[in-house]
């Protein structure tokens, strides 16, 4: 008996020691590994990633942002949560009344005017329809954010612009424990992170016509340090996340800066060999006041506070139309150009008859970019892009070359059926919205396709492209366009710069 019991016990112990469950055989899911990159998208950046258009943010625009287009193309649009700003949207135009807020710009279908409306500021928060989303937004981009803000800002006060209430809107602090934009993105643990930052580290220079390193342009060492820290943080906290970033276009390649390039002419008769801005008509065509026997046209230079002007900025257009800013009067023609008083008086009368307003007031320096300023801006963009390119190598993050795309957009043939012209000149094909800085629906669709190309190429995917064509002609119905100074200048409100 004892032997039997002992035998059984021994048997049991042997089995106990020797026998575990068999290793299960691995199953396979019908998914391609690469597709895992598309499980969850998040985006950080500035207005370009927020879907900002026509000086404002609203759901209509956000649904045409490039991150949303991408989410749509991979079938994740329903779950992609942006800080939805319902109509009438939030504009950045300064209403001169702190109790009111502007809407984004819009085209008045009746008159063709670019306009904005005003409504009580107290209504703004009510427009955010998913204010109580109990997690960070998937698109955390804050219009106006500089590179440093992506990394460090938690609210307006801690950002580069304490008046920019978009931080409160989008980062929702202190509710979110004072998490920064990048921290909130990390918490989402996306499989694909879209990162486009740094545009605003140089854009202010173009918008303000003032290129000063350390004031309107971030010093490159600082840019490099911040971008490195940003990518280090992302890589260490999100080791499995696919990251795609974009470089920075030349900020002089936007209608806000280059629309009035068409009013530049050399004036041989006045001994001016390099093109200068000259008096122009309602169709932005330089006015020929006279042709001499040699067939040389006489243009009249606009008065500018700066010399060696390379670009006249868009706000000058409306001021030109409204008040005759830059249009020389007879006195200026005598003193500045050395015209005989009789000729000057005759020319002035002619201009008045043509509907111009000879004010004799020079276009101020903050509405023009000089050759040197343009060069400084271009150099800054080149510096930033070479930093981004080397970080791309270091951190193995592919780049969307938006700089090249914008250059192509400005070439004669345009790009992908779109042009880089201002709405005023090409309402059917323009890639830009009414503010002349940010893309429109079609422009963002084209940008989404550029991201999609890079994502497909680098992660072995085949996300279908957005049909840009269907978003073209957003302003096709535009008739005679009148520009209100405020309506164009407001873009700058995102980037206040202390120039003193």
């Amino acid at each position, binding site marked *: *008996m004892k032997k*039997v*019991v002992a035998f*059984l*016990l021994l*048997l*049991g112990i042997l*089995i*106990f020691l020797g*026998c*575990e*469950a*068999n*290793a*299960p*055989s*691995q*199953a*396979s*899911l*019908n*998914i*391609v*590994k690469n597709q*895992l990159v598309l*499980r*969850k998208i998040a985006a950080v950046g500035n207005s370009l990633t927020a879907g900002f258009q026509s000086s404002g943010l609203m759901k209509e625009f956000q649904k045409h942002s490039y991150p949303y287009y991408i989410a749509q193309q991979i079938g994740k649009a329903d*779950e992609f949560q942006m800080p939805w700003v319902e109509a009438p949207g939030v504009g950045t135009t300064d209403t001169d009344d702190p109790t009111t807020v502007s809407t984004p710009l819009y085209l008045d279908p009746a008159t063709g005017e670019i306009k904005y409306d005003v409504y009580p500021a107290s209504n703004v928060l009510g427009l955010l329809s998913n204010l109580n989303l*109990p*997690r*960070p937004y*998937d698109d955390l981009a804050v219009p106006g954010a500089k590179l440093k803000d992506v990394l460090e800002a938690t609210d307006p006060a801690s950002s580069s612009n304490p008046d920019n209430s978009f931080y409160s809107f989008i980062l929702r602090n202190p*509710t*979110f*424990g*004072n*998490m920064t934009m990048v*921290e909130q993105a*990390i*918490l*989402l*643990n996306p*499989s694909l992170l879209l990162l486009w930052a740094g545009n605003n580290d140089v854009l202010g220079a173009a918008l303000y016509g003032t290129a000063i390193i350390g004031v309107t342009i971030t010093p490159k060492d600082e840019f490099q340090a911040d971008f490195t820290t940003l990518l280090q943080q992302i890589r260490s906290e999100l080791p499995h996340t696919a990251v795609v970033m974009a470089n920075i276009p030349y900020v002089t390649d936007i209608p806000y800066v280059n629309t009035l390039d068409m009013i530049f002419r050399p004036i041989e008769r006045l001994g001016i060999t390099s093109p200068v801005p000259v008096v122009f008509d309602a169709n932005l065509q330089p006015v020929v006041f006279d042709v001499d026997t040699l067939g040389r046209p006489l243009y009249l230079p606009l008065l500018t506070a700066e010399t060696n002007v390379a670009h006249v900025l868009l706000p000058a257009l409306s001021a030109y139309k409204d008040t005759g800013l830059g249009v020389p009067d007879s006195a200026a023609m005598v003193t500045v150009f050395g015209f005989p008083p009789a000729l000057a008086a005759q020319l002035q009368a002619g201009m008045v008859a043509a509907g111009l307003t000879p004010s004799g007031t020079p276009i101020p320096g903050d509405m023009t970019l000089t050759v040197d300023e343009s060069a400084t801006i271009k150099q800054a963009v080149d510096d930033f892009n070479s930093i981004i390119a080397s970080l791309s190598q270091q951190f193995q993050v592919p780049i969307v070359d938006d700089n090249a795309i914008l250059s192509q957009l400005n070439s004669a043939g345009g790009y992908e059926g779109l042009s880089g012209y201002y709405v005023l000149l090409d309402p059917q094909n323009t890639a830009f919205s009414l503010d002349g800085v940010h893309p429109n629906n079609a422009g963002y669709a084209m940008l989404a396709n550029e991201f999609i190309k890079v994502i497909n190429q680098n992660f072995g995917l085949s996300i279908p492209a957005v049909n840009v064509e269907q978003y073209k002609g957003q302003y096709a119905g535009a008739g005679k366009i009148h520009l209100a100074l405020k309506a164009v200048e407001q873009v700058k409100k995102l980037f206040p710069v202390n120039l003193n």
Partner: protein
Amino acid sequence: MRKELLIIMLLLLSFSLSFGAGFGLYEFGARASTLGGAVVAQAYDASSVFYNPAGIVYLKGTQFYGGVTIITASNKWVGPAPLYSDEVFTSESQIHTPIGVYLTHRLSEKFAVGLGVTNPFGLGLKWSDDFPGRVVSKDVDLKSFYFSPVIAYQVTPGLSIGGGVDIVYSTVSLTRNILFPEDSHPGTEVGELTLSGNSKVSFGFSASILYKMEKLSLGFLYRHSVKNEFDGDADFTIYDKYYKTFLEQTAGIVDQKGGTEITYPAFLSVGAHYMITDRLGLEFDYMWTKWDVFDKLVISFDNEDLNTTVREEYSNSSTFRLGLHYDLTDKLEFRAGYIYDQTPQPRESMSPLLPDNTRNDYTLGLGYNLGKVQLDFGYMLVDFGERSTVVNGEGKHFDDFNGTYTGLAHLFMFSFGYSF
């Protein structure tokens, strides 16, 4: 006070684990267990209090029977490609010791009473900290204690009826890592949650019949369902990182009261026992368990935003039990058994909390009768086989945590009986 002491002692002693399909257990006596649990038509020892109370009227005088089952189990998991590598994760080795302790007393020729303490439902499964399914379940421990006073009455010399009350007390502890945001996969692991609680005392009942003929006997048992409401504490540990303030202060993920509700299903057994020779007996039982009561597992918190519902959607299930006993000598009985235990769990809810499968159980045992003293030993092998939530490349799991599981358990059973 004594009752409390008893409860505490039993709590210390008893760790229960799922060894019937789902989280049911049926191993509460070494003899009965080594017969594959096919004993509803027999009245052999005081464990009849559990298996068929009607039988205790055939037990002479006052009898004690008690024992323990020592369970070691291993569960393994491998995730599906290409989401996971082919690394196999094994649950942590734990020992579980459900008990069955009984006392019966015949009051007269026709009446007998008894008391049993058993753990018919339970679950215990712990995974390592690096197990990928830790956000589904890292550690679960459910224990039930049935205190069952019973009474039996002999209607005719061959026919008896019995039944009793189940006074039920349970404890539960669930630990998992927390994912934030939960609705936005894959999310970030931000901390750990442990929900631990005790149930209020609940009540169930049992009713049974035993009909004995010369060689053939028939048995029937019904045990009613018991609904358990657990109140307890939800302890959150949020990692000390940048999101801590937000999760604690805004999302309200802080220590608070929490609770859940688990219903133990009703089951019924019918069986026939036949003495083929004087020494050789055979029993076949069929058991039906109404598992559809386990439809979902709702965990509720003071902060209702944190409430979670885990879909379980169990189906009713069948178990087939076969037991054979043979007297080697007057004192020594050999036993063997087999159980086919159909899982109530749909593939879709198979998870690290409870990866169930239809099981094949094989048993062997010996009993030694010394007159007043009875000693029983036994061994059971529980083979879960292999089961995957992935079918034809489609992940079926409700919460999208897919994988293939295997399981194997060894049960060592010891019981001691004494007739006064």
